[in-house]
């Protein structure tokens, strides 16, 4: 017998659109089943969520074209079958979400601070920003300007911090916490690695203590214990007390991140700096820290994301941040029961900030990696 072997079938396509589908969705029958199942769920879910959030939703007017002023006028209350989200609650309360109870006549001060914050932060983030050096000078003085602008003084009417709220409080807590914790974290990290046993032990104890307890207990500490520790006459308002707690908390986490960066600096750098006669502080400020901080920036951004999310905890001690304003809106009898709209909106605002920060940290990591590789080659 001298049969010709049966000719094989051509291999299945692995390129092109069909090939892509076969490779990524239907590579075997289990995968195909999973893909079909997920597609079915998405087919059910995506139209529903789009409909609820956008197409069937009220923004300012309900389906009768009336301007919504209470929950009874929301389409989803009038017509539970077809009505979508009632964003009017956000629309009506938008001022509170952005500024809290800041006086309307003075709100330009908050807006100006928001704009200046952007001018101060954006050049800090991108090192190819044009005229970056000059912008950075502004970044250094910005906190002082913002303090007087928001708080009053220097000819501006004072605005008590218990009128602040919404995004303003969230941003003040987040930005101030990060800005103050950064230098404190550097000092703690250097202290923990110090050769002086007393200092290293005290820094280690402080860091491990803070990292071992939840933030909420530190906030309680700031709220109920701090006033007992202070002598008469020194009165701190709620926001300042919370800021103390948040800064202490963040500085411990920042210290650990920076310590990681310090450990990554080769011993040779220390020895070289010492051998050219630099003092301890010169060595750290001019040689070690600039390198250590550069490599720990992605992790610093990551802990900052954590802090930014954790600022919501201040609602437990009675401050009205973005989430606090949202809960306040829900407690209002005219808007009762619109929880999903409010929580959706607050989540979205947080998501925009934190997702942006995490993308930025990824971008930095990538940049750092290529930078180091270039140095090694």
């Amino acid at each position: 017998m001298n049969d010709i072997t049966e000719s094989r079938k051509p291999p299945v396509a692995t390129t092109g659109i069909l090939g892509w589908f076969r490779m990524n969705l239907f590579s075997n029958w289990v995968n195909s089943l999973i893909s079909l199942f997920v597609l079915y769920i998405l087919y059910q879910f995506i139209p529903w969520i789009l409909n609820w959030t956008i197409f069937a939703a009220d923004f300012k007017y309900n389906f009768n074209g009336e301007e919504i002023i209470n929950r009874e006028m929301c389409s989803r209350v009038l017509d539970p079958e077809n009505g979508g989200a009632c964003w009017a609650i956000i629309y009506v309360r938008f001022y509170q979400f952005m500024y809290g109870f800041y006086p309307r006549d003075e709100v330009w001060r908050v807006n100006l601070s928001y704009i200046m914050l952007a001018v101060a932060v954006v050049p800090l983030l991108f090192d190819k920003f044009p005229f970056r050096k000059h912008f950075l000078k502004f970044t250094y003085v910005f906190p002082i300007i913002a303090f007087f602008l928001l708080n009053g003084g220097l000819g501006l009417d004072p605005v008590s911090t218990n009128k602040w709220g919404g995004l303003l409080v969230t941003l003040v807590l987040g930005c101030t916490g990060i800005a103050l914790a950064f230098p404190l974290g550097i000092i703690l990290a250097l202290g923990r690695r110090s050769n002086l046993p007393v200092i290293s032990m005290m820094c280690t104890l402080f860091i491990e203590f803070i990292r071992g307890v939840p933030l909420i207990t530190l906030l309680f500490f700031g709220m109920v214990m701090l006033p007992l520790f202070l002598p008469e006459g020194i009165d701190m308002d709620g926001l300042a007390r919370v800021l103390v707690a948040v800064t202490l908390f963040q500085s411990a986490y920042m210290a650990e991140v920076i310590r990681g960066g310090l450990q990554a600096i080769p011993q040779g750098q220390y020895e070289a700096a010492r051998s050219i006669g630099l003092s301890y502080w010169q060595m750290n400020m001019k040689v070690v820290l600039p390198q250590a901080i550069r490599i720990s920036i992605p992790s610093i951004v990551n802990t900052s994301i954590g802090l930014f999310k954790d600022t919501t905890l201040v609602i437990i001690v009675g401050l009205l941040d973005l989430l606090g304003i949202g809960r306040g809106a829900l407690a209002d009898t005219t808007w009762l029961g619109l929880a999903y709209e409010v929580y959706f909106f607050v989540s979205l605002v947080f998501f925009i900030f934190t997702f942006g920060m995490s993308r930025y940290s990824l971008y930095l990591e990538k940049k750092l990696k290529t930078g180091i590789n270039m140095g090694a080659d």
Partner: protein
Amino acid sequence: MRSNFNFFSDEKFRSIFFQTLVIGLFALGIFFIVQTTAYNLEKRNIATGWRFLSDPAGFDISFSPFINFKSTDTHLDVYFVGVLNTLLVSFCGCIAATILGFLVGIIRLSSNWLLVRVAYIYVEFTRNVPLLLQIILWYSILIQLPRVKQSLEFLDTFFISNRGIYSPRPIFENGFSYVFIAFILALISSFIIRRWAKKRQDDTGQQFPVISTAFGLIILLPLFLFFILGSPMSFDYPALKGFNFKGGMVIRPEFIAMFLALTIYTAAFISETVRSGILSVTKGQREASASLGLKKSWIMRLIIIPQALRVIVPPLTSQYLNLTKNSSLGIAVGYADLVHGFGGISLNQTGQAIECMVIVMATYLTISLTISVFMNIYNRSIQFKEK
């Protein structure tokens, strides 16, 4: 040679000088704080000391599955209820988050593009929204469940309503302790058999069916004993009486909200560590084990996971610590944990802020330290041992 020796340029002297200075300043600061605090406490008529712990609390706690708490019980009992509730939700959360996290982490490395995308969206959304918001959101969903009268029924034994999940409560009768003892013995002996089987396999290469033996010992033996002894267990079924259920066992919506939020939030982080852990095992390991002819499931179980675990466990430890600390957010939905019960209500009633906060903080430190110690022991046991 210089005649006027400058003490300050001597490193040893300088180090001693600075450390003494720091200790001195620290002691001064403590002294100052103690002074002002004592003065402030006296002025505000706040009692000091630990006597308040044995005073009756005077309030009720809605969720106390382990201790039967009455309002006449002391603040110390409030503390124990709080600790147990904190540990309960943390423990359940850690286990569920580990399972979900490993699942999502492995899914994110699967070859199904759609599944990978869905997992990615889940991770990004839950990681980037504050946990407190998620807890409150889950709670607001749960309390929109039907009222008690219209509760959802399953087989007439489970009832789901906005007051929680009601289920039958097991009542252990005489003789059940034997079943329990058998169970414990089975656990111990399975552990010993596993060690013995491993040693024998190392020495002789012969394998032993450990899993099926352990299954038989742990499940079948107590079950067998249970029926031999005439089923010494009955159930107390929940029944609707008036406005609420009587009898049975209830899981409150506060607990469910905390559990769901903590699990879903932490699992997103765990999935990332699992993913990076598995990715850290080089491709060569997979190829080498495939060329040895190992099955696909064996490659994962025997080659990839043990190596990935070395990378996964340290960040996993810190996720467990985070979860435990985050369980303190129960106060936002009224879950009677350590912070809410003892650090919140007891503190407000007695006004003894310092004592309460010291106890709460010390407890969290102890819990954190305990988790760290155990996870470090586990970590050491899985690290690469050079022979």
